[in-house]
């Protein structure tokens, strides 16, 4: 039986910014059909790793392969398989929601009719139909995440890479997004998302990797990684929980 290439395979990925080591040889395999959570403290290298895995940032060393296609050697084929929701990057937000999603589709070389059909369907599912003629700059944070997700989905990717998809999203929108992601995984797709909300990852992911200081500290199914306790306990264990808060006594004495 031939071995099936993982949905995402990172080998020896390294990135330095000046003297700072952001990602220090990192290996990770994301199995096909998994709902994979990447957790880590701020500055652990999650965004850097995902950027290198999706072709936004060239690694200093190492390889990234999507379904067996090397992202940096055959970028066009690899990028066709990826849908991306980055964190902290702008959108072409002077376009309306409908224009932006259409743009994402046409950029991928899709046919006009198909783009129009899928745009309408995605906007309807994400509850953005009423806002489709509004400029994206006027969208709330949650709507912006949703319209970015629509851009990531329009070409029917096999792997979805989402950087902090639930940050600044209200519970209603979060539920919509979760529903779409679960449907995507059930249909055979693979989702990789980064977050620092342990509860959420524990609840919705099948697999998880804990990253700290640019390395994978633990990886596997959620049950394997958390063991007996909660994911948060294991995480704090690996990352190193801070000592009890000392000082700031003046904050506790209210004088009036």
């Amino acid at each position, binding site marked *: 039986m031939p071995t099936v290439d993982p949905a995402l395979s990172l080998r020896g990925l390294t990135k330095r910014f000046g003297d700072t080591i952001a990602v220090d040889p990192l290996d990770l395999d994301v199995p096909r059909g998994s709902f994979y959570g990447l957790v880590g403290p701020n500055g652990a290298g999650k965004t850097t790793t995902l950027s290198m895995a*999706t*072709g*936004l*940032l*060239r690694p200093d060393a190492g390889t990234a392969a999507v379904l067996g296609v090397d992202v940096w050697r055959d*970028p*066009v084929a*690899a*990028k*066709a398989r*990826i849908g*991306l929701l*980055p964190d*902290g*990057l*702008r*959108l*072409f*937000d*002077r*376009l*309306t929601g*409908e*224009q932006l999603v*259409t*743009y*994402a589709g*046409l*950029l*991928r*070389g899709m*046919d*006009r009719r198909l*783009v129009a059909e899928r745009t309408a369907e995605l906007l309807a599912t994400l509850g953005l139909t009423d806002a489709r*003629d*509004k*400029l994206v*700059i*006027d969208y709330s944070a949650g709507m912006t995440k949703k319209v970015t997700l629509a*851009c990531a989905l329009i070409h029917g990717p096999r792997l979805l890479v989402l950087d902090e998809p639930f940050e600044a999203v209200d519970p209603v929108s979060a539920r919509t997004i979760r529903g779409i992601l679960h449907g995507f995984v059930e249909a055979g797709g693979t989702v990789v998302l980064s977050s620092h909300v342990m509860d959420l990852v524990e609840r919705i992911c099948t697999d998880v990797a804990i990253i700290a200081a640019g390395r994978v500290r633990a990886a596997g199914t959620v049950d394997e990684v958390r063991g007996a306790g909660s994911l948060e306990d294991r995480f704090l264990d690996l990352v190193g929980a801070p000592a009890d808060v000392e000082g700031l006594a003046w904050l506790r004495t209210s004088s009036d």
Partner: protein
Amino acid sequence: MVAHLIRLKLVLLRNSLRRGAAAIVGMVVGVLYGGGLVLTAFAGLVALRATGEVEQLRLAVVTGGVVLTLGWTVLPLFFFGADPTLDPGRFATFAVPERALASGLLLSGFVGLPGLATVVVGLGLFVASTATVGSTLVALAAVPLGLLGCVLLSRIVTALAASVLGSRRGRDVAGFGALALLVLLGPTIALASGGGVTAQVLTRVVDIAAWTPLGWAWAAPAHVAEGRWTTGLACLLLAAVWVLVLFLGWERVLSSVLRNPRTVSSQSGSARGLGLFARLPATPMGAIAARAGTYWLRDPRLNVPALTTMLLPAALLLPAITEDSVLALVGMPVVCGYLLGWSQHNDVGYDSTAFWMHVSSGVDGVSDRLGRLFPSAVMAAVALPVYAVLGPVLGSPWSLLPASLGVAIAFLLNGFGVACVTSAVKQYAVPAPGENPFTSRPGSAGLTLGVQAVCGAAVTALTVPALVLGVLAWFGHDWAAWAALVVGPGLGAVVLVVGVRLGADLFARRQAVLLQDLVSMR
């Protein structure tokens, strides 16, 4: 508090130099550029003091002072952009007493290169005002008042401009204001270069200026030097009142900014349907063209300069009409082609980090390069023929039409070719989407100047063959005019093809690097 703000400005200045070699190069270029001018002015004023009569000194001091004040007020708006580092709005969340903030921001205006230049020129004006003991005494008070007036007026105008430009309506108004200024510039230059200004007229203008708020402080010592003590002291008093009024005005502007803080990008809008996306071909190139076109219609960072670029060649109509200059008429389409050609050399910079959509979609370089040129191509398709035909209609020989059109198209296509390459190589910082289009990024001046110099030189060098033929046509060789019409566009097409190929290659290899550059510029 005041010392605090000045120290903050100094730290900002030092940190902007730490950002890298480009910033230091920019600063050096700035020092050489402005420093020479300032020192010349200073030396001129001192020399005039050594030799001149009081009459000449008065003219020089009042002219210098008024020009300095106007420079402080107008230049930041149109050329350098308002310095955003000490934007009063940024202090809204701190509990700084308003009066202290007003004084601190005022004095911090003297820190930095423009401040230093102002102080040096101010010293020169002081030296030139020391003709008599009395005028020296008055100048001791008048010159600082004049300098304070400069900075205060400039602070008020930039703060008001920032709030006006915060609204979309305001930006449109500002765009037309810039145009009006441009149109006024023409006759001024024509008047000055045509010898229409005699010494008498100049004296008259200066005498009037001396009695405006801009001139009071500078004229006071001169009045005293010429023996008119009462007039001089009255001017000094008026100048003091003027500074006080400005200070109170500045305080009010400041408190309104602090009490009603607003974000600049508070605009909203909508558009029905897909617009250009439905009209242009449904290919990656068509989509990129539609996106670029939509942005040029909606984004003031792009449409204000675009409109200016399109209309700038029309300024040549003034010498053409007032002095029957045939060269100006023939030059219109050429200037138009030159300006429009490489206007998009920094286009990726305007995408800011939204460029990730192009990177992650794996779009091919040729689509990206050619799609981006769509707005410039449309403007050129409208403007070039109009300017080219306008010349002969207004009196230049029809025989020169093929030459001017040929050279103009050569400039345009060569510019396109160069822009395709440069916008895939290196981008300099531009105002971010939604930012005041008149802000400048501190520390980016060097790179900006460098890239622009290279672009302009490259475009001109590539156009030399067409230019030579154009010059021959100008000197009466009719065959050269037709040759220019063949050779210019022909070579231009070759340059464009090579530029697109090269640019597409660079785009494919460097897109991730470009994106990281854009991320680091935020």
